[in-house]
């Protein structure tokens, strides 16, 4: 379930607060922020509970999935495994314990890696963050200008072409596009490396942020930086594709919305240059929506990372979630899902609040 959907839903629903433009809205209030924050907390609890509930109403058995053949046929080994991971305790007891440990930052121990889930997640989060930030950066850099062109050439061939291309961009499974790109640019042409974050045997830069490109720059290792960028470009571009399509469509709509405003006509009428009108009036008026949609794109990128990281062997949160899920590594699945959902809802929260802050009409209105 994605975000603009939510904003769509809100349009039909007069009593709710929306992320899409509203002509009149009261200034952003503390009560609104607090309520959104509380809703976010409730949502996160719900996430833990749902995942937790599911992991206990299961036909699939984590013990047999994670033990070797010999151990699986040994009842003692199975019992020891179940006891170690509290698989035999009552449902609410297990959930209570889980929440309690959560409050202490303890997400349990991954069955797969034998590491605390929290440290696994901390290891992998920077990789996904690096990828996501690069992807959204690309999406904004490409999507916004395309959307503007589309709006300014409304109903001309360029507009039709861009609209069709952006609709296609939304219809393409990113994991498929990634695979094809890998096949073409790595396997056939050899232009890009074949996955991972650095060349095989490449030494990661000293960890500052955990993002290789940034760390390499900070510690002055230009060779490593170039390598890291090489590895980053293709997966980021693939992850950016839905965002580019999304931003093209929404920027077009926002610009068309603003361009017919009286103040834009007034600016044109008083003889300002077209480029000035576009920059100072149109683009500025469209900014709140662009920021909102970029935020939504960022949230979506984190979710999509589950599909795309796997293709590029990118050792981030997404591939961790995937590998844990197929191994039925519950603590890890729960931790990864919780982590990604947390990021997702937090970005949504920030986007909602930020929207109120950046929309000049709100300040003018108050």
């Amino acid at each position: 379930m994605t975000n603009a959907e939510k904003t769509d839903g809100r349009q039909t629903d007069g009593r709710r607060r929306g992320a899409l433009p509203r002509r009149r809205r009261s200034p952003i209030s503390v009560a609104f922020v607090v309520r959104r924050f509380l809703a976010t907390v409730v949502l996160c609890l719900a996430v833990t509970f749902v995942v937790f509930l599911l992991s206990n109403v299961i036909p699939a058995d984590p013990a047999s999935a994670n033990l070797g053949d010999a151990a699986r046929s040994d009842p003692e080994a199975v019992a020891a495994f179940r006891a170690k991971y509290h698989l035999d305790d009552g449902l609410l007891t297990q959930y209570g314990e889980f929440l309690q440990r959560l409050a202490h930052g303890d997400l349990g121990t991954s069955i797969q890696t034998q590491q605390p889930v929290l440290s696994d997640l901390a290891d992998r989060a920077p990789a996904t963050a690096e990828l996501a930030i690069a992807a959204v950066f690309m999406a904004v850099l490409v999507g916004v200008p395309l959307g503007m062109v589309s709006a300014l050439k409304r109903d001309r061939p360029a507009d039709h072409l861009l609209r069709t291309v952006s609709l296609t961009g939304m219809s393409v499974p990113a994991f498929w596009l990634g695979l094809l790109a890998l096949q073409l640019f790595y396997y056939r042409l050899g232009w890009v490396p074949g996955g991972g974050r650095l060349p095989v045997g490449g030494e990661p830069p000293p960890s500052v942020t955990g993002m290789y490109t940034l760390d390499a720059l900070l510690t002055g290792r230009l060779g490593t930086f170039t390598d890291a960028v090489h590895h980053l470009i293709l997966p980021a571009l693939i992850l950016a594709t839905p965002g580019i399509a999304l931003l093209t469509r929404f920027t077009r709509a926002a610009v068309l919305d603003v361009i017919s405003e009286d103040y834009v006509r007034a600016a044109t009428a008083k003889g300002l240059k077209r480029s000035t009108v576009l920059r100072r009036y149109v683009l500025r008026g469209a900014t709140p929506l662009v920021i909102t949609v970029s935020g939504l794109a960022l949230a979506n990128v984190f979710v999509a990372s589950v599909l795309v990281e796997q293709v590029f062997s990118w050792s981030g949160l997404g591939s961790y979630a995937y590998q844990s899920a197929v191994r039925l590594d519950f603590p890890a699945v729960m931790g990864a899902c919780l982590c990604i959902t947390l990021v997702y809802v937090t970005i949504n929260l920030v986007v909602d609040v930020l929207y109120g802050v950046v929309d000049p009409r709100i300040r003018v209105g108050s």
Partner: protein
Amino acid sequence: MIGAIARPPRVSMVARAARGNPLFASALTVSVGWLVVALAAPLIAPASPLAQSPDLLVGPSAQHWFGTDELGRDVLSRLIWGARVSVTIALIVVLASSLIGAVVGGVAGYFGGWVDEAMMRFTDLVFAFPGVILALAVTAALGPGLRNAVIAVLILSWPPYARLVRGQVLMLRGSEFVMMARLRGASAPRTLLRDIAPNLTGPMLVMATVDVGEKILLVAAISFLGLGVQQPTADWGSMIATGTQYLEAWWLPTFPGLAIVTVVLANNLLGDRLRDVLDPRGVTGDRRPGR
């Protein structure tokens, strides 16, 4: 008020949407075409989707138009049978989730008050879950497999319909013809079904059209992760997944991916155009972003 009410869709309106719009007509052809392929799979497919042959990983040829996979199975045949899985699941999910959503939204909108509040807060909660992640958690927990993947997708798919229907019911509830029905002594269910529901079919059809594509994408994603349709059943998502292991065989992922793109894009185009005709007030909103 009356003028603002969407008319129920008629075949003639779809025909009107198609006339003078080649893009819509071709999208309709593609979409209906896949439906026919799904229905007639046993008749069209050149071979059994499970039949193995000694020609492993052979590229497209006269004998195997779309090549063969790692077990020597005909990719074209698997693609055609895969349409069955994808199209059927998408239709079932969309039908079921629109029904659930319509009931939830209809009840919430019509009765209002705390019923509305409780139901819509719950809807918000489900709505806020990121789809692929919950699907991942659900299928991981219930065990991989088609049935569980469908359950996972169903859990997540109804809220947009609930919101749409609730908004519409709220709007229609106060209209004169609904009041007339109530004054005539019609019961709440009767009013909802006979007077309000026909006005919802247009926007619902628009949403469902786009949603079929969305659900094909989502199910393909789940199967790609190995959590949905299991081998040896032919399915687009898992066919693409096989391609990750054989980078030299470009035909493995290319064709199933193209199948997904064509059906999703066709439905998106249909939805866009149908919205113009059936939902001039735009209550279904712009289409949703990718994942």
